[in-house]
């Protein structure tokens, strides 16, 4: 480059001025933005989410984005409602032993099974005019239990020993065991008139040939208030009112679900009017939503719903220090979760004292709790043989320092922040924590499933109301090379008491007795501390002032299952 002819100071100023200009542009964001698009007869709702659904087939793979979209177009037989009660959705009356629609029957091997009779809604009709019938139930079961169908969870289907078709709309399901949730039938039906042929031609290729993959806009695949009419992979899906829907007519003619991964960009899309509403199930993080509400609370309504997303830290119980329950309790006392919740989440995410959400009916009030108490933590650590040494770091008799690795999902900023706060709080009680983050696909796809973590992992479980923690706490669910790394008891927690409680809860039909068992389970959990409870996450629903009727659920059945109640009102 040629020698500059202009004086040097000017040269150095130009980029700075320019930067300052951009900074200014950012700073004036508080100013009211341009008028939103004319409110002319809102017959379209554009929803923003952070993930694009993969396959639309209801039973292959599982991801929240898919569930969120499908709930507008398909309904399971039974589901949990806003009050976290099991209700009929596609059926007409919830079967029970009391109303005679369910009964206990003897199994050939001498055990007990359950026969449960469901009646499908008489007017339920696939979008192409074919009624939804018992034949669809039978087909779904047959496909589900076929070893080559590629359905992810065969267990659900394998528990069913047979299905009797009583008539077009009535059928009896025979389960091979009697559990307290014997009447739950949460599977989605597949349209036999479209799918059976494709399945029987080649079961192994079915997952690629299903109409949900090849013709996702086929009207016959959906019977809900909406059906999917356009799929722009990676970008958006368009749903239109389904004329065969038997329930109340939804208010919007069209619903568009648009995926924008970057949450800052998602916010920009909302503010510029390209999307109307950010779904809480897959939307802004809690601190972004809080900040958003402070700035735009006049135009948008933000609703927070703490739910069954249990943020916690799984511990490696084989770790020399963490194997001692006193060390685990000391770690609990060392955390100041109340302050974290108040300062980072405006108190919107309640502190968890066990794995059961206070909103769940089986939640017990009187479990041991761990307040922030560094003195108590220090005493516990002393007792466990970890004495304060040089540099404020605790060591055992052999001189080994108390050092633990804390891993969490890279890219989840809230978790990254909390990890750093905990690191600093535990440092104060003489525990050195090394924070190492991994991308979710590595953490969930490998480190956790193969139990290759050494210390602690912070993540969340999402569950349904009264979900029995068999897969996460039962000793048979510890992933090992022998069982192909199945199960989610990543901590390696093995407690005969816990196993017995889990088995007992599953089989206990009496609500009061079950509540007592649940109380014992929570007590045991809070004492043994296989994992450190942090808080229950809250979803933030960012809605325009005119959108009414969206009711967050707080559990695995998203708010979109009641999409027909949504409406625009000025």
């Amino acid at each position, binding site marked *: 480059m040629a020698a500059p002819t202009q004086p040097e100071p000017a040269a150095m100023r130009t980029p700075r001025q320019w930067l300052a200009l951009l900074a200014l542009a950012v700073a004036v964001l508080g100013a009211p933005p341009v008028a939103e698009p004319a409110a002319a007869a809102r017959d379209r709702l554009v929803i923003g989410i952070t993930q694009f659904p993969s396959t639309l087939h209801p039973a292959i793979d599982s991801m929240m984005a898919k569930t969120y979209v499908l709930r507008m177009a398909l309904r399971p037989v039974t589901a949990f409602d806003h009050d976290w009660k099991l209700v009929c959705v596609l059926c007409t009356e919830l079967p029970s032993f009391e109303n005679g629609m369910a009964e206990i029957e003897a199994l050939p091997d001498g055990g007990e099974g359950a026969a449960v009779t469901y009646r499908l809604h008489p007017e339920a009709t696939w979008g192409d005019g074919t009624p939804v019938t018992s034949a669809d139930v039978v087909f779904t079961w047959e496909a589900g239990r076929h070893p080559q169908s590629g359905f992810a*969870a065969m*267990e659900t289907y394998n528990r069913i020993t047979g299905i009797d078709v009583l008539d077009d709309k009535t059928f009896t399901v025979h389960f091979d065991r009697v559990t307290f949730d014997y009447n739950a039938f949460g599977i989605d039906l597949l349209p036999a008139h479209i799918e059976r042929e494709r399945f029987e031609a080649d079961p192994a290729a079915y997952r690629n040939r299903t109409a949900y993959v090849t013709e996702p806009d086929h009207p016959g695949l959906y019977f809900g208030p909406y059906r999917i009419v356009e799929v722009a992979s990676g970008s958006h899906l368009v749903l239109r009112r389904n004329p065969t829907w038997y329930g109340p007519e939804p208010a919007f003619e069209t619903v568009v679900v648009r995926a924008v991964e970057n949450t800052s960009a998602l916010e920009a899309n909302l503010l510029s*009017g390209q999307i109307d509403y950010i779904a809480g199930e897959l939307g802004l993080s809690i601190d972004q939503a809080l900040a958003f509400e402070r700035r735009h609370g006049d135009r948008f309504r933000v609703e927070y719903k703490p739910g069954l997303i249990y943020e916690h830290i799984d511990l490696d119980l084989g770790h020399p220090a963490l194997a001692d329950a006193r060390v685990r309790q000391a770690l609990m006392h060392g955390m100041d979760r109340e302050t974290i919740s108040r300062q980072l989440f405006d108190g919107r995410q309640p502190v968890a004292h066990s794995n059961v959400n206070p909103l769940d009916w089986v939640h017990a009030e009187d479990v041991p709790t761990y307040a922030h108490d560094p003195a108590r933590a220090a005493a516990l650590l002393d007792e466990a043989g970890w004495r304060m040494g040089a540099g404020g770091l605790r060591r055992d008799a052999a001189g080994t320092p108390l050092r633990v690795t804390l891993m969490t999902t890279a890219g989840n900023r809230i978790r990254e922040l909390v990890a750093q706060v905990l690191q600093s709080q535990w440092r104060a009680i003489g525990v050195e924590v090394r924070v190492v983050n991994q991308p979710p696909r590595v953490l969930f796809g490998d480190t956790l*499933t193969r139990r290759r973590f050494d210390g602690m992992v912070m993540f969340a479980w999402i569950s349904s109301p009264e979900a029995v923690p068999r897969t996460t706490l039962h000793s048979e669910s510890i992933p090992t090379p022998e069982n*192909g790394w199945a199960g989610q008891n990543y901590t390696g927690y093995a407690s005969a008491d816990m196993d017995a409680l889990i088995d007992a809860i599953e089989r206990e039909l009496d609500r009061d007795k079950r509540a007592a068992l649940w109380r014992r389970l929570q007590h045991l959990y809070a004492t043994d501390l296989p994992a450190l409870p942090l808080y229950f996450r809250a979803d933030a629903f960012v809605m325009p002032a005119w959108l009414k009727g969206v009711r967050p659920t707080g559990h695995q059945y998203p708010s979109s299952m009641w999409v027909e109640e949504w409406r625009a009102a000025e």
Partner: protein
Amino acid sequence: MLRHVLHRLAQSAVVLLVMSFVVYALLGLMPGDPVDLMLAAMPDVTAEDARRLRRLYGLDRPLLERYANWLVAAVQGDLGFSRLHGRPVAEVLWQPLGNTVLLLSVSLAVALAVALPLGMLAALRPRSGFDYAVNLLAFAGISMPVFWLGLMLMTLFSVILGWLPAGGVAPIGGGGLGDRLSHLVLPVATLSVAAIGQHIRYMRGAMIETLRHDWIRTARAKGAGWGRVVLRHGLRNAMIPVVTILALDLGTLFSGALITETVFAYPGMGKLIYDAVMGNDYNLALVGLLLATALTLLGNVLADVAYGWLDPRIRQR
């Protein structure tokens, strides 16, 4: 010339083949497999389910065997199935490819349209105030993080001013040409800033070099007008190195496109590959990467052709 192009194409095919194996092996080195991810997402998958699914997806076979199977199928046109999108890979790729080619070509055109005249004018008056300003602009352009620039532009033009859409390729339900173009403005602006900076530098350098040659002075002495000399002789010769570099820069441009697409939720190849890698979608990641490589290799061959067209000495070969 034709032979030369064919030779280059054959070379590119070899590079692609080698690349396919390297990437296939790399994907095999990624932690976990698709079934592991599924296990983590679904609590009720049992040990038996896991074994069954691994067998079903062929994940229990050794790497070389899997690669050979994949290659045989791929050559026959079966690119496999995308786990993430639940559709055949060939089907998934089509639209993003079109979107990315559009984004890249428009950005490149814009970049050249801005950079070539600026670079040329700067070269005509080296060390002038104008030259100095253009240089500063060029360096500023190549020194900015692309994602930051994208978010700033989005903030300014979509949120504060409300002039342009904040993302996507078109309004829902298609929309006219104008709509599509308005969706293209911000991504193109974001992507072309760095390219503008880059090409101003190249153009200016090449032009200065060319104008120093004796034959330029000779042409001028013969009475040809300065403008005519610059445009007819200077520009043409200066374009030769610029075109070479243009082709080499396609890979860089594609990298920028990946970021731009992520910021603007623009469904293109870059975002597709990124999502596929992050989601353990082996088939899609592999084919996506190969396609992106093929795209840049093709760009190189095209540049070769343009090079021959610009430089008569090569044309006659």
